[in-house]
């Protein structure tokens, strides 16, 4: 029942908001949401203690017949692939609630939707049934669409509609693959059991895996299915961006590993060289596009496109080290991108802009945002993969695990890693160094006389970012903690692939 309780905590919390008096102050509602999410995080940590690190298969399983004729069973289970993501979801949903400030519009609905997303994401990660996974996958879509549509920026309708269309298409493709599998195998059992495809022809396998690749590729997102992400991030509020980049994109990579690699290892072996090149293209395109951005948030969004490409590269190689790298990359990208979006949010709140042609000198110790700038430098260093931080360990494992299998794609991805340093140094150099300014330099003589008066950042505003920065460094210094959780599961997945390959 431990996994059911994990799902019930945010679900009950979300339902609780429906019964709260609408006159309740938004800060109180925020407090209640935080309390629920703290309980959820503590329960997630409890799962960690109940988890047997030596076992590679699903643990803490629960199975109840639900709609038997449709093959829909209430089946839950957790392994070394999903547990880190459940913990990540616990941390980042809490961070999203904590960093929600100045919410005046429909706070009840807002926090209920945040909790509903947390419920759906946890559900997707622990679902042990294909249709059950898809159910949760689709459930998170609607709250996120509403969060962008109601609390987003000026172009929120365009961005949210684009997000809805892309992600709905993603869901349709995944559903088509699952139903196609059932149709071809003649079974209505949608239970998640690895290598169910032995009796299916290679052509059909490739078709089904192709559907999953495109479906999850939209969610990750991989080039060329990425265009919804920068728009969604740009229009979404900071907490929603934290959730989107930190957790929701991981549904795509998780799905790819869980359903693509584990269910179609034969077809995976055929398609993996193309996937490796696809990953390299995604990494390079995301990095080059990030260099061209003038909006800090779009730059971070495009960096996500690049960094999620590493996961595809690792998945394509499917060696034990590479798959471990994929898990590390998912977790580290979740923490680092959430940190960067939080910091961009602080900059935007204080200056009213994210334009890199306007912002200058925010590291100014007297009138700028020096602590925010310091954390930003730390965040971009982590994202660029500097040793001692989470990003380094993730990229090192991905490259180390993939170089022998796909040397060209890995080398190209390494170039992308170098480009990360380029665009983030551009960001830091433009926005944080030099004389403090938040206006374009039309006239240098006037510009140097401007008296900029930004409100200081209160320490409480940086607590979530500080916590994430500590997590990024901790994971970089103590990678064995995560490796211990995922080692058995990723090793087993790699064996599965090696067995058929």
């Amino acid at each position, binding site marked *: 029942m431990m996994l059911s309780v994990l799902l019930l905590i945010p679900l009950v919390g979300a339902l609780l908001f429906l019964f709260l008096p609408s006159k309740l102050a938004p800060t109180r509602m925020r407090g209640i949401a935080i309390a629920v999410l703290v309980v959820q995080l503590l329960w997630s940590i409890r799962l960690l203690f109940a988890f047997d690190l030596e076992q590679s298969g699903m643990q803490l399983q629960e199975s109840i017949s639900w709609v038997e004729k449709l093959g829909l069973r209430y089946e839950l289970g957790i392994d070394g692939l999903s547990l880190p993501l459940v913990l990540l979801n616990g941390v980042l949903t809490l961070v999203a609630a904590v960093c929600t400030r100045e919410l005046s519009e429909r706070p009840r609905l807002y926090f209920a939707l945040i909790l509903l997303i947390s419920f759906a994401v946890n559900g997707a990660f622990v679902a042990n049934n294909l249709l059950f996974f898809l159910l949760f996958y689709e459930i998170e879509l609607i709250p996120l669409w509403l969060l962008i549509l109601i609390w987003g920026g000026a172009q929120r309708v365009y961005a949210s509609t684009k997000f809805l269309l892309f992600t709905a298409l993603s869901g349709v493709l995944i559903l088509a693959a699952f139903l196609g599998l059932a149709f071809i195998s003649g079974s209505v059992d949608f239970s998640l059991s690895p290598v169910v495809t032995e009796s299916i022809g290679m052509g059909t396998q490739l078709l089904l895996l192709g559907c999953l690749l495109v479906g999850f590729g939209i969610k990750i997102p991989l080039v060329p299915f990425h265009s919804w992400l920068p728009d969604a991030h740009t229009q979404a509020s900071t907490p929603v961006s934290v959730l989107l980049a930190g957790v929701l994109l991981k549904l795509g990579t998780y799905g790819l590993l869980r359903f693509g690699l584990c269910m179609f290892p034969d077809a995976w072996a055929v398609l993996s060289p193309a996937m490796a090149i696809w990953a390299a293209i995604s990494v390079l395109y995301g990095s080059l596009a990030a260099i061209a951005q003038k*909006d800090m948030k779009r730059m971070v969004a495009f960096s996500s496109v690049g960094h999620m490409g590493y996961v595809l590269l690792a998945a394509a190689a499917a060696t034990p080290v590479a798959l471990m790298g994929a898990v590390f990359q998912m977790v580290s990208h979740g923490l680092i991108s959430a940190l960067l979006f939080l910091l961009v949010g602080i900059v935007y709140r204080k*200056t*009213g*802009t*994210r*334009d890199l042609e*306007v912002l200058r*000198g925010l*590291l*100014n*110790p*007297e*009138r*700028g945002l*020096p*602590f925010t*700038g*310091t954390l930003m430098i730390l965040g971009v260093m982590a994202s660029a993969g500097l040793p001692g931080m989470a990003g380094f360990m993730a990229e090192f494992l991905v490259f180390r695990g993939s170089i022998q299998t796909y040397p060209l794609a890995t080398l190209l991805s390494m170039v992308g890693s170098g480009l990360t340093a380029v665009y983030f140094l551009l960001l830091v150099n433009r926005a*944080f*160094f*030099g*004389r*403090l300014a*938040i*206006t374009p330099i039309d006239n240098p003589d*006037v510009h*140097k*006389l*401007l*008296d*900029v*008066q*930004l409100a*200081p950042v209160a320490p409480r505003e940086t607590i979530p970012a500080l916590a994430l920065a500590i997590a990024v460094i901790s994971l970089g210094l103590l990678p064995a903690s995560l490796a211990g959780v995922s080692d058995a599961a990723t090793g087993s997945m790699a064996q599965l692939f090696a067995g058929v390959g």
Partner: protein
Amino acid sequence: MPVIPSELVRYSPAPSALEITNKLLASETLLAESDVHLIEVVDVLKSYGEVLDAYSKNLIYQAEKQFLLPFPVFKFLDGDRSLAKIWRHLCHDRINFEYAEYCMKAMLWHGTGGLDVYLDSAEFVKGISLIIAKKKRDPLLGMLHPLFPQFLPELIRTAATTHALGQFWRVMSDLFIDLAVAEANGTVNSIASVVEFIKAGLVAAAANPITYGVQIDGENFWVLPPQAGLTFLVDVAVPYVEAVFLRGTPFLGTVSFNAQAQQISPDQAQFAYGALYADPLPTMGAGIPPSLLMQDMYRHLPQRLNNLYQNRTRADGDVRVKICRSFQKAMFCVTNAAIAGTFPHGLAGSNPTEIAADQAYAQAWAQRLAMGRTDCLAI
């Protein structure tokens, strides 16, 4: 992208050179009259006066007691070598005497006026030859002098500038503290009266002799003898203003220049990096202090000015920027007083030649001041 809120960026237009010229010729103050300006100028000068008192004492101590000491490790301790004093020094619970040294070096390097002329004269070289002959008995100096014959004379020039600056700041410190007393008892109640008070103080001290002698092994030697005829205003005050207010001041961390990118003129006279030109906002990364002087003045800030700052922008968070802006306002008042006191002819005269000379004098000053941080003058 939303519009940047206008309250986040303020711009105060700087007056043109013509406006400055007109104000100087009309005996108007450069700094606008206001009660807030009066508090800022008087109180910041009071804290500056207290800091200058410490600087002055230390510079004179260094020049007299640490003269030609090869390793002046305790030069900032003013002779007090108690453990408590050393501990406070190491914990940085102290005045930044380095700032005074930087000002001295700026004066030495930009050398203008009578002091510099005397330091380069044959009379000076002859005068210090006795000192060098005496000091050559020191084994280290005795070995260095034949190898580097300009070494000891340059050290003595440095010591002379140090002492002269100490004497100059002695007068200015007393003047600024007297100004605060005068404002407290109501004698000074406007910016115009502040400028007038400073002008009167400078004029009164103008002819004060600047001399400097040292004692070596019980024997007295003149470095700047009375016969050199050096005086307070022309030979030290004016070169100080030229070096520190106009050409270059060590407001560390406020701005950086790239000489390779031709941001620094090869002509020293074209330098405009002085206190009147410094950007109050520190540039570059976190952790660099905007200025040692601002830190020192912050330690001595009068309560009234501190209360004023608490209600502005980030209260204590950006207090050094606010002190710097107030300091620049005060320095424009001092410059205003110095210009008013050094016009070639009385401004009330009707002789066309004299009027033209005064106009040329005012225009020359206005050209230089117009490039400075005059945006602080209106608000």
